């Protein structure tokens, strides 16, 4: 089966607040955009599929296997990686080391090997280091892999986080506003890197939450719109973005924000 | 049996009040103040000296309370504020260092002998039938404890209290709305110092205090605060009382040596079974 993720009738509330309501969504390989006004529940969707939240009702399937109630660690090992709105790196590790922190999926050696630096672990380490270096280079950060992560501008930090997520060889990559705060050049590098990666991994899916609608149109053949926890429209960007229901949702949100 | 319960409620009131002081400061400064009991002791000794110099009882009490407030604010402004950006560890260490320094200071100025705070009702007791006598000072402790908890509760319902809760919830947003975190921090520390002073004063008017008392008192205060999950006032208060009663029973029917260990066990069990404490009632932060 090629479908990577399937949301079926997912409900989620916090206290009295309904955040997701009857979400049905099918995510195929390639890029899928997830857009909607603030507070629509986009990040909640990511949290649900990555194991951080348990839906009150409904099911979420990863390649046909339900991940409801699965811990985030297990979900990640199944091949799900994500980035966060604000980059969560280890500030005093180098960019390269930060990327190497990813890839939990491939950790097959136990703590003993890790702790004592046994030959198997050292071999593993070298292989990971090479892959990490390559990933950084793909995203234009190959020049200073040894520099401390805190020494990079925040845009670059977000890209490092993406590289880290990719070390895991994910079947599902979740990007939470990857372009926010990035300059035009960085965005181009990001897009190029992602495109290259998806070409090399045709079976993988990338879900992108973004407010930058131009980026969405550029990257995603499919986009879903969330509004007050419900999917109000899904399809090709050029159709969806002109749909009057969607326009009203955004305009309505704009008007409300403007008050 | 009644005697044991009353004694337990009495010491429990001390634990509860100190726990409340710890919680108040925790909300504002995000640090458990290890020096809280010492702060109370300093203030109480000041009061004892004032009384010893011939001043009337209530003046000495006032002196203690004022000193407690001033000490709290001073510690906040001079020490704690500048450390808040560096994370929890330095703050914690600072309060530990402070408790050491204050304890030693007390020893230097007042010596290490046990003292008491003589009150008009010291030594008086009330008979409640069956030959059981309850010390008036015990009743004072319990009543003041209750009043104190109510006062703190009311404070947190006031606008200042609401602001403090807002800051506890989310510092960034609170600042945006114009809440002065600095002013609130000083108020919280002042209130904490005040409550600590009341606590040790109560202890001194009923039993003896010395430089050795704060070491155990602060632990008991922490247990109470933990029972309230460091957020709930009622949880802390009730927790403190329950701890006091358990302590007394263990001491009376089992062994005094085991008392301390029991407190330690209680706090550990609470943290294991209810990691967020018992958090019903007035919460300073929605968990």
């Amino acid at each position, binding site marked *: 089966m090629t479908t990577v993720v399937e949301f079926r009738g997912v409900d989620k509330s916090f206290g009295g607040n309904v955040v997701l309501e009857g979400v049905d969504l099918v995510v195929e390989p390639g890029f899928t955009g997830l857009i909607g006004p603030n507070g629509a529940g986009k990040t909640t969707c990511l949290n649900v599929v990555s*194991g*951080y*939240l*348990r839906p009150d009702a409904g099911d979420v399937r990863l390649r046909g296997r339900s991940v409801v109630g699965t*811990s*985030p*660690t297990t979900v*990640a090992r199944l091949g799900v*990686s994500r980035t*966060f709105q*604000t*980059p969560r*790196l*280890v*500030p*005093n*590790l180098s960019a*390269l*080391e930060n990327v190497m*922190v990813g*890839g939990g999926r491939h*950790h097959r050696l136990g*703590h003993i090997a*890790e*702790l004592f*630096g046994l030959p198997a*672990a*050292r071999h593993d380490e070298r292989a*990971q280091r090479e892959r990490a270096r390559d990933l950084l280079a793909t995203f234009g950060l190959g020049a200073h892999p*040894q520099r401390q992560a805190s020494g990079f501008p925040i845009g670059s930090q977000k890209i490092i986080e993406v590289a880290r997520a990719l070390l*895991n060889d994910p079947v599902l990559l979740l990007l939470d506003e990857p372009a926010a705060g990035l300059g035009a050049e960085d965005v181009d590098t990001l897009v190029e890197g992602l495109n290259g990666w998806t070409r090399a991994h045709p079976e993988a899916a990338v879900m992108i939450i973004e407010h930058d609608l131009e980026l969405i149109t550029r990257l995603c053949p499919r986009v879903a719109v969330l509004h007050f926890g419900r999917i109000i429209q899904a399809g090709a960007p050029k159709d969806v973005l002109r749909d009057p229901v969607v326009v009203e949702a955004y305009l309505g949100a704009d008007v409300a924000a403007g008050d | 049996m009644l005697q044991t319960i009353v004694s337990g409620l009495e010491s429990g009131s001390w634990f509860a009040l100190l726990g409340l002081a710890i919680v108040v400061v925790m909300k504002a400064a995000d640090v*458990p103040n290890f020096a809280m009991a010492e702060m109370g002791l300093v203030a109480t000794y000041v009061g004892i000296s004032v009384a010893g110099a011939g001043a009337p009882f209530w003046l000495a009490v006032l002196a203690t309370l004022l000193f407690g407030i001033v000490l709290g604010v001073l510690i906040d402004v001079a*020490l704690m504020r*500048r*450390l808040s950006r*560096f*994370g*929890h*560890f*330095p703050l*914690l*260490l*600072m309060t*530990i*260092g402070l*408790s*050491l*320094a204050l304890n*030693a200071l007390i*020893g*230097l100025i007042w010596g290490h002998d046990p003292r008491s705070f003589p009150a008009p009702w010291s030594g008086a007791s009330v008979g409640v039938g069956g030959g059981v006598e309850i010390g008036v000072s015990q009743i004072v402790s319990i009543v003041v404890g209750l009043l104190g908890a109510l006062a703190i509760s009311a404070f947190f319902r006031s606008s200042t209290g609401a602001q403090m809760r807002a800051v506890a919830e989310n510092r*960034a947003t609170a600042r945006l709305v114009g809440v002065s975190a600095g002013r609130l921090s000083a108020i919280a520390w002042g209130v904490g110092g005040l409550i600590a002073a009341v606590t040790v004063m109560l202890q001194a008017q009923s039993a003896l205090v010395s430089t050795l008392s704060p*070491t155990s008192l602060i632990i008991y205060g922490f247990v109470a605060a933990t029972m309230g999950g460091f957020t709930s006032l009622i949880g802390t208060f009730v927790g403190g009382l329950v701890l006091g009663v358990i302590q007394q029973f263990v001491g009376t029917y089992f062994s005094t040596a085991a008392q*301390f*260990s029991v407190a330690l*066990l209680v*706090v*550990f069990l609470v*943290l294991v079974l209810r*990691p967020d404490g018992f958090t019903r009632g007035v919460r300073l932060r929605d968990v």
Partner: protein
Amino acid sequence: MSETTEAVTDATLTPSASVGGASIAANAGAGLDAQRGSGLRKGIVAVVALALLFAVPFVANAYLVFVISLTMVYAVSTLGFNLLVGWSGQIGLAHAALFAIGAYGSAIGIDAGIPFLVTIPLAGIAAALLAVVIGFPAVRLRGFFLAIATLALGMAIVELITFARPLTGGGAGMNVTVFALPGIKNSASTYFVVLAIAAIMFFLVRRALVGRFGRTLQAVRDLGPLAGSLGVAPLRYRLVAFGLSGFIAAVAGTLYAQLQTFIFPAMFGMNLLVPMLVMVFVGGAGSLWGPLIGAAFAVVLIEFFQDLGDQQAIAYGLVLMVVIALLPGGLTSLFRSVRDSRFGARLRRGRQR
């Protein structure tokens, strides 16, 4: 569950909301790549330092030998404490108690006929297991709850040692049979044993922290529950950190018992925990020099204040407060600001040529 929800929303607010970590993390594993890069140079420095240390008993008096031994013991203890507080970001305050387990475990073992050197790993394992037992509920707790829970348990352990009078001599304490290397005078013998064990521990710990384990541990510290999204089990790593720190503390404890020759429970209470906190704080969180510096600082302080008698405690408290106020990032932050300054940059450029 509540922990994960809180964390994911926290992610959008604060970049690094780790508990004890903010100041310590800034120094932890600083530029490990850089450390590894100059591996040969570091190796030479280490060998030279070892050689110098080896020579000490031949040139120094007994008192100095004792003080340096003590510093090394504290350095090992701080190594373990650092692993827990600095690297895994957990303020676990049972360290002094686990140290005591090492001291008492070894002393009792020797009396039971077990050779001293064998008691070291045995005590270490016992403490590691105990630390894991403590850690089991503790690792789920955040921040100060963890500190208080571990503090309580630590104190309870010391109380237990006091209660077990037939085994431990109770509050009055017990004698420790000192192990002597054949043919070497007692104080020098203990010194060499301490030196050897300390060197081994430093080597092992550094090896463990420099690779994937250290990296992942730091990720768990800084990302908290979000580390799960990396395919890492945060709770398991935190538990392993507890166990390791317990093992290291106990090893230091066995050496401590040999040095002091007589141990009693009061030695292992706040009187020890506070200096341990100071050491780990002052030393910052480098994998090699930090604990050594912190230990040296504390020992110097203790010896310096020895003569003050009653004023000791206040001096100690004051110094602690001053150090924290002036250097909230620990001593290594001082080194770091020098390094990052222009002066430091000029030094580096000069070296690279």
